[in-house]
């Protein structure tokens, strides 16, 4: 049978996806905390972006090349780079969504046994991905175009709106809809090689860990560079001197190769509108055709791999292991389960490894910024704040301590191990990871000269105690609200309200402790009181709040735990 796109089938498939989406918002399924957290984060991101991008734009427009102002070229460069960043972000998200929707979604298996052609399924899934991308596109394109509009000098408005405001705002709306199409078209081509790499790394856990950790570290380094530029911007005109003749020449050359961002910017600024519009259209059509042609083979191969249980990777022959204590066996089980599940490995081990780097990068920016702005050294307070903040984010993983066990939680219940051993093995394992991460962070802070050895030891101690409190709380909270995965591989694919709650609480506590010590130090500094008094108060406040939080968390963890454990029938499977 020829595989044609059946649009009535596509409509049915979209209806099914809509129903599934709606069920996520029904009472009992709706993650209100996560929803509002995401909303706040997006609002915060947009606000910060508009402020800093606006400031950057006004500096960038005032740059002179060969002694002359050239707002027209600056506009073109800024818009090209901005659209390119949006397209890349959407493409990265698109590849991820495509892998999830086309290769990993459970319904694919079901559809393979139904008269649903791969092309119809592909189109339905693409439309669903497009819907998701559209939201992000609207937020980012509007943020960029509004900020550019607000910051372009009045005399250069003609360069921005060569055909009048209606054209500029009309094109802004059009770009919101077109950018996801471009990114999805590119993503559909990249999905296959990405999937091949994923399959290759599937059972090579150590290699995957190294690659993923290195890439994340690199991403954070890039983030630190951006933060550094933000700092320069806040501190004065240093940034303006950074964009000298050779840098501007380099930007000009780079912009030439930044397609399709270049085409979009040229289209908007009326620099060869027809030519660039046609180029965009051609790219869209070519990508769509290639994607439709190759998707059948991709999906069939992916499906066969899933039905046969994934790649049959031969492990070296092993014999039954030497006896180890029950507690050791439980700890080892925790490690194996996390290390061999790529998403868990990334969210916990990679983040824990990178945490010292994140603290260091942020410290580098914040320390000099605060010293320059206030004139005093706030390193201890900043080190505490950043360490607690990043620990809180790392330990969020512990909010799946029970849920990720899945149906095996019941099997473990039937084993001759006490509830104390089961729960404490999870806590000790997480604490060990946290301990290593906090120790390296303290060493880095001391090694980089931000804090003396005594302060580094204090940061380490508080970090560990704070982590212990969060791990205990998160574990019990997850126990009370456990939701086991019903996926074939038992993996938790979407974070629920438990994760959102632990993120919010962890960050609130980190802000409470970090914020209060920063505030106290600031007040002491403004009053010109002795720095040592502020230091003692810092130790007292941080120690006090952390100990109280730890005591409360421990109480929450153990309160009626025995009864709860033996009476447990949650998780949604029984």
């Amino acid at each position, binding site marked *: 049978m020829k595989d044609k796109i059946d649009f009535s089938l596509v409509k049915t498939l979209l209806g099914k996806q809509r129903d599934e989406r709606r069920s996520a918002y029904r009472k009992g399924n709706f993650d209100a905390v996560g929803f509002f957290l995401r909303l706040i984060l997006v609002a915060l991101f947009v606000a910060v972006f508009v402020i800093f991008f606006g400031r950057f734009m006004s500096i960038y427009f005032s740059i002179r090349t060969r002694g002359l102002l050239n707002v027209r070229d600056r506009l073109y460069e800024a818009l090209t780079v901005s659209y390119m960043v949006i397209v890349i972000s959407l493409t990265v998200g698109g590849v991820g969504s495509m892998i999830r929707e086309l290769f990993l979604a459970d319904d694919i298996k079901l559809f393979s046994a139904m008269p649903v052609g791969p092309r119809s399924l592909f189109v339905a899934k693409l439309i669903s991905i497009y819907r998701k991308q559209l939201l992000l596109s609207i937020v980012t394109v509007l943020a960029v175009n509004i900020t550019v509009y607000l910051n372009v000098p009045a005399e250069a408005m003609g360069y921005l709106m060569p055909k009048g405001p209606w054209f500029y705002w009309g094109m802004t709306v059009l770009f919101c809809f077109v950018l996801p199409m471009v990114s999805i078209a590119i993503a559909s081509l990249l999905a296959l090689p990405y999937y091949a790499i994923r399959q290759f790394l599937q*059972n090579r856990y150590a290699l995957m860990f190294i690659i993923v950790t290195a890439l994340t570290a690199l991403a954070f380094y890039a983030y630190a560079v951006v933060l550094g530029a933000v700092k320069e911007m806040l501190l004065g005109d240093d940034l303006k001197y950074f964009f000298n003749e050779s840098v501007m020449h380099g930007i000009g050359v780079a912009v030439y190769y930044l397609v399709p961002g270049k085409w979009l910017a040229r289209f908007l600024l009326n620099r060869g509108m027809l030519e660039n519009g046609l180029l965009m259209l051609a790219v869209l059509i070519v990508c769509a055709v290639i994607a439709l042609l190759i998707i059948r083979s991709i999906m069939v191969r992916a499906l066969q791999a899933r039905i046969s*249980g*994934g*790649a*049959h*990777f*031969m*492990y*070296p*022959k*092993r*014999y*039954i*292991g*030497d*006896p*180890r*204590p*029950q507690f*050791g*066996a*439980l700890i*080892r*089980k925790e490690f*194996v*389960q996390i290390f*061999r*599940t790529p998403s868990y490995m990334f969210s916990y081990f990679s983040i824990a490894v990178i945490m010292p780097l994140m603290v260091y990068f942020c410290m580098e920016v914040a320390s000099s910024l605060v010293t320059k702005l206030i004139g005093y050294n706030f390193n201890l307070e900043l080190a505490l704040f950043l360490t607690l903040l990043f620990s809180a984010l790392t330990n969020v993983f512990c909010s799946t301590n029970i849920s990720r066990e*899945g*149906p*095996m939680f*019941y*099997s473990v*219940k*039937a*084993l*001759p*191990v*006490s509830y104390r051993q089961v729960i404490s093995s999870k806590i000790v394992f997480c604490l060990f990871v946290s301990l290593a991460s906090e120790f390296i962070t303290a060493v880095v802070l001391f090694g980089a000269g931000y804090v003396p050895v005594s302060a580094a030891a204090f940061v380490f101690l508080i970090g560990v105690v704070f982590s212990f409190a969060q791990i205990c709380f998160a574990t019990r909270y997850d126990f009370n609200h456990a939701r086991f995965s019903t996926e074939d*591989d*038992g993996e938790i694919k979407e974070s629920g309200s438990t994760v959102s709650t632990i993120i919010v609480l962890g960050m609130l506590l980190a802000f409470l402790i970090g914020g209060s010590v920063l505030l106290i130090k600031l007040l002491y500094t403004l009053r010109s009181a002795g720095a040592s008094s502020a230091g003692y108060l810092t130790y007292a406040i941080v120690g006090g709040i952390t100990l109280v939080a730890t005591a409360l968390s421990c109480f929450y963890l153990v309160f009626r735990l025995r009864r709860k454990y*033996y*009476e*447990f*029938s949650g998780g949604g499977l*029984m």
Partner: protein
Amino acid sequence: MKGPEEVLRIRGLYKKYAKNADWAVKNVSFNCYAGEIVGLLGHNGAGKSTTLKCLEGMLPYERGEISICGYDIKRQPMDAKRNMGFVTDNHAVFLKMTGIQYVTFMADVYKVPEDLRVRRLAQLESVFQLGDAINNLVSSYSHGMRQKVCMMGSLIHHPKLWILDEPMTGLDPRTMRAVQDFMRKYASMGNSIIFSSHALNTVAHLCDRVVLIRKGKQINDINVKHIIAMNPNFDFEEYFLSHEGQD
């Protein structure tokens, strides 16, 4: 004269899943003696798996008493659990472990000494025939292979009571036969086996006794071996269907 050793004792077991729900298990009572194979029969949703989960300690129950080798599952859970091995209906195994890692984990949890675990693994490998696949990740296993590794893990400590929920599901005929032979051999060593199943022929040929459950209520406890010995033409399927349908 001392009678056969009582391995499992269930008295007046009541279990419900929610406060206002109907009883999932209502007044179930039976014993299981050393050397005996007991089958638990009933239609889908009759309460077989719930009964087994209660006696494994997986699920709490409202009323009743369960003791394994004289140890009460509520008051002395560790001692009771040390004397049993279980195979769940969903073949729950740690998917990210290899087969051998899973068996090692179970051996560690049941504190099986080194020499015994090596010897028992060799015995179990000859029964379940996983071959080199035991070195692969459990996530790559078929349902039948998961079932096999689950059985191996449940037997590594040589439990006095072996509990199996739908053990034959997903097994190939050769393994099914091997498992049945092994069950007989295992029971003849003075151990006790209780399992739930829908396969009436398997139950009739394998079990010494059968407990019939309907809508959570125990409706009969019959000595199959005795009945078949008395009446070689006894049609177990007919018997089950007539009793299972009765109110």
